């Protein structure tokens, strides 16, 4: 600790004499990071890190600091994207996802909302695309959108509302994706996958299926091409519907999950090995009043969170008595009392919970009422799986697919990536 100067380039800062007062430059990287741990949210940290090259480098080069910061300050939810209730494939009927922000009091979080493109204006300017977009996935600050125009060239768009002029357009599938199908081939919405090693590299996966088989088609950002995986027989009972897999789009730790229409099976794709597996879901999830999602209990742990009425529960992958790994219920609870504490008499308008998404240790839920005569908009709220704390978001109709948008770490702060990579780090 003899020399507390950060390794700066400018020579004058290096010669600190006793007579010169101590400045912010006198602090070591360690101390700067200690101070950063007290910043209230990731938004503040990003602004602080952009103050100078040394600070950005301090954050980017310390995985242990980032881990600790994430533990102390979970990535903040900025809002929810709602797809348009119906997307008509016609240029005369505009359809854009709606973003509903969460109203934080924090100035830095307000700055993110004020200064970003949550209206998705960058894609509306595109001359060749219908004003007809739906989100198919949302990961690490990026949203993946599909244009409703079946004739459009490069109808997929990937964009980060926080990054100006960063949108990319590409094809929505391989021309031979259906080759060799039996019966009627179908496809599901595209899923977005990021590599953990390099946040600039991503893949897009589209599931294709026919009467009894599935196949993965994958777009890779490094060569801008789609590739096709083999058909895989998932040997389930014959399905009554030809659309027997739901557009569920769930992802944990490199695994993608789809639920069958009868809620009987879970189809899983391990994107590391590109191997499919199928297993039966527990009986109680097949109840038509039950709503559930597969998601992240924590960063690496998949869970199923379900709700029936106001009763909720969690299933984890566990070794069963017979030595086989299954989804087993590890926790259940009736949330009615806690809900009443949060919503008071408003709760009386509702009779059930719907699970919207499970991400990053938070469950996104909607208070709803089934079989109502008068439409009552849902109340959206979050439930922290670690602390059990509930946080009200806003009231809105739950009439389409919803994607939580959480502030993500910019690539230039998680290592030597992107436009601002330092050449001297090699």
């Amino acid at each position, binding site marked *: 600790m003899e020399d507390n100067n950060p390794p700066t380039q400018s020579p004058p800062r290096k010669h600190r004499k006793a007579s010169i007062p101590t400045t912010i430059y006198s602090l070591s990287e360690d101390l700067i990071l*200690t101070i950063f741990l007290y*910043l*209230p949210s990731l938004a*503040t940290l990003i*602004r*602080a890190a952009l103050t100078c090259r040394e600070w950005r480098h301090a954050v980017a080069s310390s995985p242990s600091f980032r881990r600790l910061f994430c533990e102390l300050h979970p990535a903040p939810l900025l809002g929810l994207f709602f797809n348009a209730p119906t997307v008509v494939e016609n240029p005369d009927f505009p359809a854009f996802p709606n973003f509903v922000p969460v109203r934080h009091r924090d100035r830095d979080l307000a*700055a993110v909302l004020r*200064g*970003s493109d949550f209206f998705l204006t960058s894609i509306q300017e595109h001359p060749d695309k219908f004003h007809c977009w739906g989100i198919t996935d949302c990961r690490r600050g990026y949203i993946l959108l599909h244009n409703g125009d079946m004739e459009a060239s490069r109808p997929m768009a990937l964009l980060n509302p926080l990054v100006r002029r960063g949108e990319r357009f590409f094809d929505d599938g391989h021309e031979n994706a259906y080759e060799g199908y039996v019966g009627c081939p179908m496809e599901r919405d595209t899923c977005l996958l990021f590599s953990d090693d390099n946040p600039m590299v991503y893949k897009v996966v589209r599931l294709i299926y026919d009467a009894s088989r599935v196949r993965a088609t994958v777009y890779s950002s490094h060569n801008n091409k789609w590739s096709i995986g083999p058909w895989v027989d998932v040997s389930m009972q014959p399905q009554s519907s030809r659309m027997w897999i739901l557009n569920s789009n769930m992802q944990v730790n490199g695994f993608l999950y789809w639920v069958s229409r009868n809620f009987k099976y879970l189809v899983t794709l391990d994107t590391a090995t590109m191997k499919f597996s199928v297993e039966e879901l527990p009986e109680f999830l097949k109840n038509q009043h039950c709503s559930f999602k597969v998601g992240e209990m924590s960063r690496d742990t998949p869970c199923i969170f379900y709700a029936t009425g106001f009763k909720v529960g969690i299933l984890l992958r566990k070794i069963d008595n017979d030595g086989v790994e299954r989804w087993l219920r590890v926790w259940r609870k009736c949330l009615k009392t806690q809900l009443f504490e949060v919503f008071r008499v408003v709760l009386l308008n509702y009779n059930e919970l719907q699970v919207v998404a499970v991400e990053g240790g938070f469950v996104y839920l909607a208070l709803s009422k089934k079989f109502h005569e008068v439409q009552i908009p849902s109340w959206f709220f979050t439930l922290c799986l670690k602390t059990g704390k509930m946080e009200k978001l806003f009231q809105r109709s739950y009439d389409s697919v919803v994607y939580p948008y959480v502030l993500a770490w910019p690539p230039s702060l998680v290592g030597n990536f992107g436009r601002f990579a330092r050449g001297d780090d090699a």
Partner: protein
Amino acid sequence: MAAPESGDGNNGAARMVTLISSDNTRFEVEAAAASLSQTLQLTILDGGGGGGDGIPLPNVDSATLSKVLEYCIKHAPAAANGGAPNATAVDRAELERFDNEFVNIDQSVLYSLIMAAHNLEIEGLQSLVAKKVADMIKGKSPMEIRRTLGFPDPTPEEQAEMNAHMLEYGWAYE
């Protein structure tokens, strides 16, 4: 009121130690207060710092050390009570008032303090100052942070990098 027996085996008067700053000023202070520093605690437990010896602190000047000791003396009784589970609300409020006022000082002193707290491993003081500096950072754009914390004007090279960042992370600069 009888003085509580100190745990270091000395009955009656509290044990004193001498600390010597980088500019050779000697500070005599109760061992209990100096022991808020994890680094000093080890030396003191080994019997150092008593008599005419003194513990030299070559990285801390006298102005900073006197400020550090002001903090330690104020916090020593609560620390001796093991985080003060039986402290009254009044005591806690008084410490909080002291802390708030304590960090209401020039930035150069703040930075010297956090460096000293880090060197001497005084956790409470380090987090107190870190929190104060974090409060000065929050709610500001990078340029406002530079101004608040007294950064020099950016070099042309730094300005070019900031302009590039601004294109990409425009929201952060608003």
